[in-house]
């Protein structure tokens, strides 16, 4: 009897230990294995930690890539990465003066372009900073030190060389040193050139410079204007120039809209969406901000506004921006809402030392790190996938279908304002105003809450109209009867 009890107790203890150890391992594993925080900002701009939307999926380095049986060697300060329409990934290996072409899984080398056929002569790159591939499969390389943009076809023959652009607006001593390049569906070429503050340079299909594009305005504060007014001419000449910031990264969406990042010292707008006329048509969302981190106070090197260096248009109006300052990736939707933030600086797998470019790949997202000379890959988690899909459904106008996804998001992250907003809007369309109000209240969505509230109020009034009117009638009659009786009493008193 005693023995049995002892065995039972032991068994119980053992299972208890196993259960706690097992569940404990899962929880700890899910939270701490990532080398970065993932978070978002809520309505009040407080940081709200979320599950990771993306998790590291390895790193591609040059020494582990083989072409014709030989290692291609380490990438040296690579500066740009680009995906072609057929799925291949082009990497500008700037320090080695070559362009490396990888397959869509980033495991095999398809080609290494070190030289090309320039009208019968063999020609090479010098510090190729940017790469882009057009829909036709032509390769555009911003050949920085050769001061030109080279356009190659699939057989490495030169189709076009854009160099030494001539225009009145450029001035005489302008040196064309392209940094980033992209090309739209009509083969117009958009180039960010070094030291060119007037905007993105646009070239037509023949390589002729046409105009500047998306010029960033300079906003002087009242105080700066005041001091400029007070200064004498000599003082003004010695003052620093107020010049707009340069563009840093560029991408194009299938409709021909250009996404371009710049470093905004105010941290309000670091990414632009430019229509074909060069006007900025980005939507800034509830916080009126597409500038990365909202909480940037502090005096350390790590504090300060986010510095976006590249942007990638993904799908369904979603785009991701890469922050050089803290190595974070900010993902926005077409309405300018922050979907999620992840990533960080460091030397662990999944962190960056000097991130320079971002691109979508089959795995998920790829970030090019210039210092580490590698491509860091990220794969989507359930949380990230749910948000991407739900935002995609909303983009297509199927908000009702997105409800299931948003509900699952709420299970993973119970204060997610986007999810609450999405569910609330769906209930609003379905006519369940009271439930809609509850979710829209949690999402702090004033506009839609007000719509739901007005309809709910109307419904309430309509349903209870009889009761309201009856009460009103009773009160009016009551008052009149009371007055009448009082008058009669007075009259009686006067008579007596």
């Amino acid at each position, binding site marked *: 009897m005693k023995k049995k009890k002892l065995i039972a107790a032991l068994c119980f203890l053992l299972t208890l230990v196993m259960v706690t150890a097992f569940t404990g391992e899962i929880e700890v594993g899910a939270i701490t294995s990532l080398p970065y925080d993932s978070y978002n900002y809520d309505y*009040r701009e407080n940081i709200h930690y979320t599950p990771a939307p993306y998790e590291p999926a390895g790193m591609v380095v040059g020494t582990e890539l083989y072409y014709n049986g030989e290692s291609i060697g380490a990438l040296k300060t690579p500066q740009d990465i680009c995906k072609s329409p057929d799925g291949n990934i082009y990497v500008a290996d700037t320090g080695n003066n070559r362009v490396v072409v990888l397959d869509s899984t980033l495991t095999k080398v398809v080609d290494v372009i070190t030289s090309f056929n320039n009208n019968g002569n063999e020609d090479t790159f010098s510090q190729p900073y940017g790469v882009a591939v057009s829909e036709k499969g032509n390769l555009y390389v911003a050949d920085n030190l050769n001061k030109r943009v080279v356009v190659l076809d699939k057989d490495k023959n030169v189709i076009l060389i854009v160099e030494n652009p001539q225009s009145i607006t450029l001035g005489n001593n302008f040196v064309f040193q392209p940094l980033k390049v992209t090309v739209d569906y009509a083969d117009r070429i958009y180039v960010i050139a070094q030291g060119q503050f007037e905007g993105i340079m646009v070239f037509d299909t023949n390589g002729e410079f046409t105009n500047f594009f998306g010029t960033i305005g300079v906003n002087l504060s009242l105080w700066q204007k005041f001091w400029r007014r007070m200064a004498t001419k000599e003082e003004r000449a010695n003052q620093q120039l107020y010049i707009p910031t340069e563009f840093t990264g560029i991408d194009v969406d299938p409709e021909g809209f250009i996404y371009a990042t710049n470093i905004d010292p105010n941290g309000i707008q670091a990414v632009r969406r430019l229509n074909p006329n060069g006007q900025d048509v980005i939507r800034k969302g509830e916080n009126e901000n597409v500038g990365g981190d909202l909480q940037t106070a502090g005096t350390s090197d790590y504090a300060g506004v986010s510095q976006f260096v590249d942007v990638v248009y993904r799908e369904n109006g979603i785009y991701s921006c890469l922050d050089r300052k803290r190595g974070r990736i900010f993902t926005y939707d077409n309405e300018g809402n922050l979907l999620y933030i992840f990533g960080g600086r460091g030397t662990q797998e999944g962190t960056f030392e000097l991130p320079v470019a971002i691109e979508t790949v089959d795995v998920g997202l790829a970030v090019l790190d210039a210092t580490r000379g590698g491509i860091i890959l990220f794969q989507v988690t359930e949380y990230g996938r749910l948000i991407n899909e739900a935002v995609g459904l909303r983009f297509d106008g199927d908000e009702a279908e997105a409800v299931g996804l948003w509900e699952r998001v709420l299970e993973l992250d119970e204060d997610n304002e986007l999810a609450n907003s999405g569910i609330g809007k769906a209930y609003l369309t379905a006519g369940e105003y009271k439930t809609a109000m509850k979710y829209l*209240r949690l999402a*702090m969505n*004033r*506009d839609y*809450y*007000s*719509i739901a*509230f*007005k309809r709910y*109020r109307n419904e309430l009034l309509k349903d209870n109209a009889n009761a309201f009117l009856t009460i009103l009638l009773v009160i009016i009659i009551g008052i009149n009867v009371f007055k009448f009786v009082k008058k009669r009493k007075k009259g009686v008193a006067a008579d007596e």
Partner: protein
Amino acid sequence: MSKAFSLEKWKYVFYTLSHPMDGYYWIRHADKGSVPIAIILVVLFSFSFTTNELLASFVVNDTDPRGVNSLYELAGVLALYLLICVGNWSVTCLMGGEGRLKDIAIAIGYATVPVTFGFIVSTIISAAVADDEQAFYGIILGVCIAYGLILMMIGIMQVHNYTLGKTLLTLILTFLAMLIIIFVLLLLSNLVGKVYNFIHSVYLELVFRT
């Protein structure tokens, strides 16, 4: 004590609100007002302010409820009340004002009533307004605050027997006096802190030496 809270004095609060010129005049000249009632009204004002912050519908209310503490706000409102009274008193003493500190306290305390009323009514109204109907909420609150400010001005004018121009001048000077009081208080607390630190370090030195 019972005299200060008599029904007559409570009724006189409402008389003052509807007839501010006469009301404040007799507060000064016939002791119709009551300081304890004025303080209670200020406390009610503070609570109505907190109520508005916490309970007004989120359509019109941008305050983070997690950052609201009614007792801190009460302390702040009472400190401000004291500061205004003392500031005004110290200015009007030098400028031929007839009012006593007691009268100033009553004048300002009674003037908070419309604002208290405004906060409570607009909080109730806010439960029934949508985003584009915020104007109703704003107008109620705005009118009540404006009436409160007018009452305060009339109160100060009447208890000191000033003209309107002189009242406005003293109000500006009162504001400056408040700033000076705050400055002196900060200076004092800083210096007292230094003296305390000195004594504390001498004490530590003695303790560690022996």
